[in-house]
């Protein structure tokens, strides 16, 4: 058996390094059709057919080893063995075979390091489809490197690469004898000698870009796409949600009938079914939202949207480069904040980090849906548009508008008011792969359920204890929950939140909601379930709050969740990415103030109008 080997995948952004990494190691790291998805190193292992262990390091994409951003520094350090990084035994320089003009320049730069390396000519399927002919042997000869063809998105697409790694001892060092003066001129020479391209760009891409990048039609299409997503979230998920609700109602009835009265029955009924069950029902909506997000990510449309929005975003003091991190924040603010590593300007990066929590993450969806379902009537506008879908769309727009507003204020205060131009690579359009979408959705379902059985379960259990103990004192006349620890804390907090219409139950739910936003829903479910009596216990949470809260409280809580700093993990990542507690304080502080003002306005405006 041969010795273990460490290989590093390097290359320009969006050349398919992570797709290759996933194929090699069996990992399921995020892959999307735009630059800047990977912003830190990922590690995995596989065992080659000979039994040789291979450690694979997937590195962030970079256009040059002259690193400018934190993501590029990681790649540079690994390649050069800086800052205690162990140099890999073999560098696999991954290049997009449809875009050799750009990617070969980086190959020449890495070659100058004089480290053992090979070139993986990736996306060969797309190359063949576009009629591009590459003389691989001639290219290998001209580069003085082994060149291997790969297809990162197909099973078996890495076969040649694995066979090479398995069969060869560590390849001989490349000879950096003659370093070309002008790398671009050298690339042109290589292309002339080894590549035949029918045209420089894809005809389909050009045609689609004429539509999607049109200043007017493009913006209209972008707006329509977003609109359709939120309509679909409400309209498409309803039957499945109803089914899950019925299932939990049945479970609740079974628990009530079969379990003897006592603590365990209260835990199962109030915490597990009443609490966790109220979150599980939102799974179909989460999956529909991610079906659209994953499709858009794979299609290559998102960088076009970034390009379209560059102008409006620059008016608000942002750049188009902020678009992808902000868009990632719609799934979760954490990857969004981490994705700001691809923003090399410190000032722009900090602004983007500050406003990323305002983008509506998927964890807020259960809260929004619960409140919309409870307080917004189910109506259609113009015969086909769901009114609830419109309200959801408006809430997402409110988050975006809040972000723009905050960015404008930051721009107003800062001294440096120069604008930074956007240079962004537009990838080829791709049809989303059905299998990849299926795997992506299964992964999202797994993550959501893992959150429910992990963090949400844990937070809810502790809340149940706090709502159950200590029991009602002898001679007390009020409901037992009023004398519980949670009841006492909730009533104390109500003093602060009464001006925005929050009752003590909402105040209690806000605390565990800090661990994850959806916990607020399960917490409300538990609090109301514990305090319910008779018929109330059997009612769904939505019906309960619709009956007990005034409309103004519902609107106030909706406004609160658009802005509130309700996620500890997000604040922890801001601390890590900025290295500053001050930034954490500023973020939490301004979000709290914004949320309070928005809720105050929503509450009193609704009271005045109803």
């Amino acid at each position, binding site marked *: 058996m041969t010795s273990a080997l460490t290989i590093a995948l390097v290359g320009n952004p969006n050349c398919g390094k992570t797709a290759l990494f996933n194929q090699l190691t*069996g990992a399921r790291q995020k892959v999307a059709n735009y630059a800047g998805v990977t912003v830190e190193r990922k*590690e995995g292992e596989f065992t080659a057919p000979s039994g040789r262990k291979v450690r694979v390091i997937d590195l962030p994409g970079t256009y040059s080893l002259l690193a400018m951003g934190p993501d590029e520094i990681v790649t540079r350090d690994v390649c050069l063995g800086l800052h205690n990084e162990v140099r890999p035994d073999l560098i696999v320089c991954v290049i997009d075979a449809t875009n050799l003009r750009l990617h070969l320049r980086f190959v020449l730069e890495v070659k100058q390091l004089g480290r053992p390396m090979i070139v993986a000519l990736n996306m060969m399927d797309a190359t063949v489809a576009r009629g591009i002919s590459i003389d691989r042997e001639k290219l290998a000869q001209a580069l003085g490197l082994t060149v291997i063809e790969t297809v990162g998105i197909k099973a078996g697409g890495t076969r040649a690469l694995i066979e090479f790694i398995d069969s060869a001892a560590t390849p001989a060092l490349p000879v950096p004898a003659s370093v070309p003066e002008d790398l671009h001129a050298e690339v042109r020479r290589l292309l002339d000698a080894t590549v035949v391209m029918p045209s420089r760009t894809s005809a389909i891409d050009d045609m689609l870009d004429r539509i999607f990048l049109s200043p007017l039609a493009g913006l209209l299409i972008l707006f329509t796409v977003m609109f359709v997503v939120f309509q679909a979230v409400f309209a498409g998920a309803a039957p499945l949600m109803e089914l899950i609700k019925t299932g939990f109602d049945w479970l609740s009835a079974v628990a009530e009938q079969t379990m003897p009265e006592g603590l365990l029955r209260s835990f199962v009924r109030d915490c597990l079914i009443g609490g966790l069950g109220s979150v599980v029902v939102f799974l179909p909506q989460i999956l529909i939202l991610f079906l659209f997000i994953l499709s858009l990510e794979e299609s290559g449309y998102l960088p076009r949207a970034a390009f379209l929005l560059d102008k409006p975003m620059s008016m608000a003091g942002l750049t188009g480069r902020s678009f992808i991190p902000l868009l990632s924040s719609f799934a979760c603010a954490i990857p969004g904040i981490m994705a700001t590593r691809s923003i090399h300007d410190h000032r722009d990066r900090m602004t983007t980090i500050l406003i990323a929590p305002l983008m509506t993450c998927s964890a807020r969806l259960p809260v929004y849906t619960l409140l919309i379902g409870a307080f917004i009537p189910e109506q259609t506008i113009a015969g086909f548009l769901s009114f609830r879908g419109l309200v959801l769309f408006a809430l997402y727009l409110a988050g975006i508008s809040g972000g723009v507003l905050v960015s404008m204020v930051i721009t107003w205060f800062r001294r440096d008011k120069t604008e930074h131009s956007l240079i962004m690579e537009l990838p080829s359009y791709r049809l989303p792969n059905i299998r990849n979408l299926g795997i992506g959705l299964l992964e999202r379902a797994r993550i959501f359920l893992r959150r429910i059985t992990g963090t949400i379960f844990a937070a809810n259990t502790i809340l149940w204890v706090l709502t159950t103990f200590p029991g009602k004192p002898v001679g007390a006349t009020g409901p037992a929950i009023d004398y519980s620890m949670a009841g006492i804390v909730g009533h104390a907090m109500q003093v602060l939140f009464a001006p925005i219409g929050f009752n003590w139950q909402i105040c209690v739910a806000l605390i565990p909601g800090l661990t994850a936003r959806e916990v607020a829903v399960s917490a409300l479910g538990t609090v109301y379930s514990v305090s319910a009596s008779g018929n109330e216990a059997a009612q769904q949470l939505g019906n309960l709050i619709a009956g007990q809260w005034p409309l103004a409280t519902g609107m106030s809580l909706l406004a609160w969740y658009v802005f509130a700093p309700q996620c500890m993990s997000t604040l922890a990542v801001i601390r890590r990415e900025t290295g500053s507690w001050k930034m954490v304080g500023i973020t939490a502080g301004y979000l709290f103030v914004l949320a309070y003002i928005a809720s105050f306005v929503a509450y009193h405006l609704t009271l005045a109008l109803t």
Partner: protein
Amino acid sequence: MSYDLFQNAVIALVVAYSAVQLLRKLMPQTTSKLQKFFAALLQLRQLPGFVQRWGRALQPAALPPSACDSGCSTCNMCATGTVTDQAVPIRFI
């Protein structure tokens, strides 16, 4: 009486598990240090073999080399061991 005992035991276990999970999420470094401390304590040579085995089992796994370590499990970007069985060689069909 025995059912009361049973339900109290179940609730106590679930609450203890939940408290540990929450602490791990909110204070990952502190809980890891605590876990290491208790693991070392249980592995003292004076203690019986089965206790030392518990200590070894309690030893916290090394944190992944990258990722945000927030443990939020939302974004699927963590570099946790989502790999397939690494001991099984890749076979070409």
